[in-house]
């Protein structure tokens, strides 16, 4: 016990030999090595980082995936699992190591409408699962903005959220079980899964969900499906003052209503959206809009919508309108869901930030963010999940201007510190990845970070899965778990 491990991250890898071994599993078309082919895998959806993998491997079946992970173990090769590459934290970037693409594993293995459960391969696209469940009056509730492209495996890795997580919960609340292959090739079953029954023992399923690809690779995921609501009411309230909008959202939650979603966009965001092809009809002369949605059984839904409208008016809303049909509803949401894309029109680059603060701190933190932006001469577009205090302060900028790039970086760091000082956290749904590593010790003590490393070492004692992400390596003491023999089983 307590023996030190030599991190094989530094171990020499013979790419040509490894590539041949992987090709033997997935065929030559399943391995990419040329720099031109790898180009698309050098970034995820977060701009500003570019890392080139040593090679990329794409298994098409569960058996191939198992074999690939075991070959990687045999070669002691570090690797980075990747779903659709829509992540916003740089978590799926492979810096000179193997990139393990899971997007070809896209079969829905089972759909049990009676128990509202589906079993899927990790590469199944989030929206595709909801489409498959729709004929049964069911859908998959977590709805990250990238849901048309992102995969369930990626959602599990990041514990992804989305606007409707306010009422329905994040990915963790919808995963009932999974089978995973650990980096050394061991296959484990976590959670009760489709067999049902209360879980017993440690909640290793919850530990795995949100582990950002550092604990292993999911072979299959069992998720809970949600009953399609009988009815939906979507409201848009516009506010001349941002802080009033923030106070209104707090008042709605405090009233005992749990909206399906409670979103907010500030003036700069509204104007970016309205100037784009995603124009949703938001008034452009206001400081903020609140988008609120209630859903569920039809009875009582209009009463909840009236209460929300009244609370908005009481808190200074200029007008409140209720979407009158599904088309208008979709249009109102389109503006919110495509807000990041619309900001892309302003400048060549966009920093999409993610932080959470206690909801009551929204008004003063928003004011502070505006001050910080002004001090650094940058413009911030705020779009966020107001209901749970999850902010996305985004800064459009010109990436080829080093001075502007530096000012954006400084402003972002100050914004993050402001959120932490307000009692918040550094990421609510995008994950730590590479991008938030520098902030981890703002919120966790060295002992807490060391404990996180201990947990990682339980799943991956050789520290080969997604190396260098989530917890800064300086906090990782020597492994206290016994080293096991890596290698093919």
């Amino acid at each position: 016990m307590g023996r030190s491990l030599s991190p094989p991250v530094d171990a020499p890898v013979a790419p040509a030999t490894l590539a041949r071994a992987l090709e033997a599993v997935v065929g030559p078309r399943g391995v990419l090595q040329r720099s031109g082919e790898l180009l698309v895998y050098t970034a995820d959806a977060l701009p500003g980082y570019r890392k080139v993998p040593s090679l990329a491997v794409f298994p098409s079946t569960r058996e191939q995936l198992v074999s690939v992970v075991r070959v990687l173990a045999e070669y002691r090769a570090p690797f980075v699992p990747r779903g659709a590459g829509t992540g916003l934290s740089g978590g799926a970037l492979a810096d000179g190591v193997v990139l393990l693409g899971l997007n070809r594993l896209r079969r829905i293995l089972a759909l049990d409408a009676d128990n509202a459960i589906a079993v899927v391969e990790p590469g199944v696209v989030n929206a595709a699962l909801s489409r498959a469940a729709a004929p049964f009056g069911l859908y998959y509730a977590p709805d990250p903005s990238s849901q048309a492209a992102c995969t369930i495996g990626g959602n599990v890795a990041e514990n992804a959220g989305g606007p409707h997580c306010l009422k329905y919960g994040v990915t963790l609340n919808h995963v009932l079980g999974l089978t995973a292959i650990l980096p050394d090739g061991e296959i484990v079953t976590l959670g009760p899964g489709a067999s049902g029954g209360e879980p017993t023992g440690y909640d290793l399923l919850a530990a795995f969900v949100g582990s950002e690809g550092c604990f292993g690779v999911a072979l299959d995921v069992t998720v809970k499906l949600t009953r399609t609501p009988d009815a939906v009411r979507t409201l848009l309230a516009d506010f001349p003052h941002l802080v009033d909008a923030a106070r209104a959202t707090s008042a709605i939650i405090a009233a005992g209503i749990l909206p399906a979603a409670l979103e907010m966009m500030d003036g700069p965001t509204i104007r970016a959206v309205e100037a784009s092809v995603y124009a949703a009809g938001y008034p452009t002369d206001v400081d903020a809009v609140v988008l609120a949605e209630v859903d569920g059984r039809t009875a009582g839904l209009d009463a909840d919508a009236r209460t929300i409208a009244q609370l908005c008016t009481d808190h200074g809303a200029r007008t409140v309108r209720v979407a009158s049909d599904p088309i208008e509803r979709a249009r109102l949401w389109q503006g919110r869901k495509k807000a990041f894309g619309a900001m892309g029109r302003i400048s060549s680059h966009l920093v999409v930030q993610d932080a959470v603060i206690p909801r009551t701190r929204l008004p003063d933190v928003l004011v502070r963010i505006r001050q910080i932006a002004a001090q650094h001469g940058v413009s911030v577009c705020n779009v966020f999940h107001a209901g749970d205090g999850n902010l996305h302060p985004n800064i459009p900028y010109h990436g080829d201007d080093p001075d502007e790039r530096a000012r954006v970086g400084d402003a972002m760091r100050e914004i993050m510190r402001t959120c932490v000082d307000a009692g918040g956290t550094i990421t609510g749904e995008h994950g730590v990845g590479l991008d938030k590593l520098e902030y981890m010790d703002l919120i966790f003590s060295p002992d807490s970070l060391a404990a996180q490393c201990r947990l990682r070492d339980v799943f991956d004692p050789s520290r080969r899965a997604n190396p260098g992400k989530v917890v800064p390596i300086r906090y990782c003491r020597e492994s206290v778990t016994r080293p096991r023999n890596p290698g093919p089983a």
Partner: protein
Amino acid sequence: MTGVHERDAARTSGGWAPDSVEAVQDAVRDAAAKRSPIRIVGLGTWLDAGHPTSPDAHPLRLSALQGITQYTPGDLTLTARAGTPLAAIESATASEGQWLPLDPYSVAEHGGSLGATIATASAGPLGHALGLPRDIVLGVEAVTGDGSIVRGGGRVVKNVAGFDLTRLLTGAWGTLGVLTEVTVRLRGRPACDETLAIVRHQPRVARGRAAGGTEAVQDLVHALRAAPATPIALELLNRRLASQLELPGADDGLVVLARLAGNSERVAAERAALTAVGEVTDVAPAVWGALRRAEAVTEGAVAVLRWSQLPALLAATWGHAAAACEPFPDALVHASIARGIVRAIIPQADAALLAAAIADDAARGRSGHGSVDARAPGRFTGTCIPERLPARLWGAMVSRATDDPLSRRVRRAFDPAHVLNPGLLGEGGAFD
């Protein structure tokens, strides 16, 4: 205040009563250095369960670690020290029109401690709709077995920063760390909150047999699923329990206790919808407290067991539990319809009789899930969890919950000296 003094005093009688996280840290370090096992005790409510740890384990009592340390009503979050009784949280939040919807079964009026509820991941009737402990807990502070003070999560309602120590410690029964502080999310109290008893009269054919027959349960569950209502609690009760709770119609057959919440329009509509299921009567909300403490009013040696499998198989699970309870006519049985869990309180449980009744479950062990096709008709393949057993039966119901290699590695990583509640969650931590 009296922490150090008490701690020293307590130590002479072989235990600790720390009143700060640092004092907990001292105790754990001391125990780890001596490899002397600790039995973590919240408010002592659950110790009656007769569950043995090592006979030489010294109690670490958290009853001095009490109090709400942070509560901003507008944030709907609350932080309290681990020994804080749930009743104290209930009264602090009620004045703000809020609540913590954790309602674990407990023999104590104070509802047990927050720390124990999270450490054991205990949930009650509200769990299916308002969240289980893992969904409600936002952050924890704990002392791990190596004596480190660690924090997981935070005080915000959405948080994916770092690896999830919070949920690792939730439901770990203290075997990975002693919880010292917990942050939870609260909810606003609904405008209307009504409790109903629904009595569904049995078709004549079924009436001859036990009212708890699986066909009757199946029929009832179908009817409930078809009704356009989403109760926040929905419990099926056997006749004996319904009559202990003095519910109307208890003599007639199956009784369902439903709790409806929301605005008045919604509650009225859902209530109307449920009249299609059976005869509906209003019940005072105090019935939920009486259900939570149902085992407290029974006498004699009590056993409490939970069986669970997929919710769609509830009738079969109920049938399995009914069969196990057949030698015990006084058994109080209820089921969470949405979660597929059947819970039986067996008073005067003769150990030998009980051992025979649950022999199958014992043979399968407590980690029964996952291995067999749950859809094989009629055969119970789910999980059986004993909450409370006559002392000598624990040996027969050995937990295998942490026997798998991964769990053993977790235990070793967080409790390297194997001193935290050894034996409580299986022997998985007993290192070779």
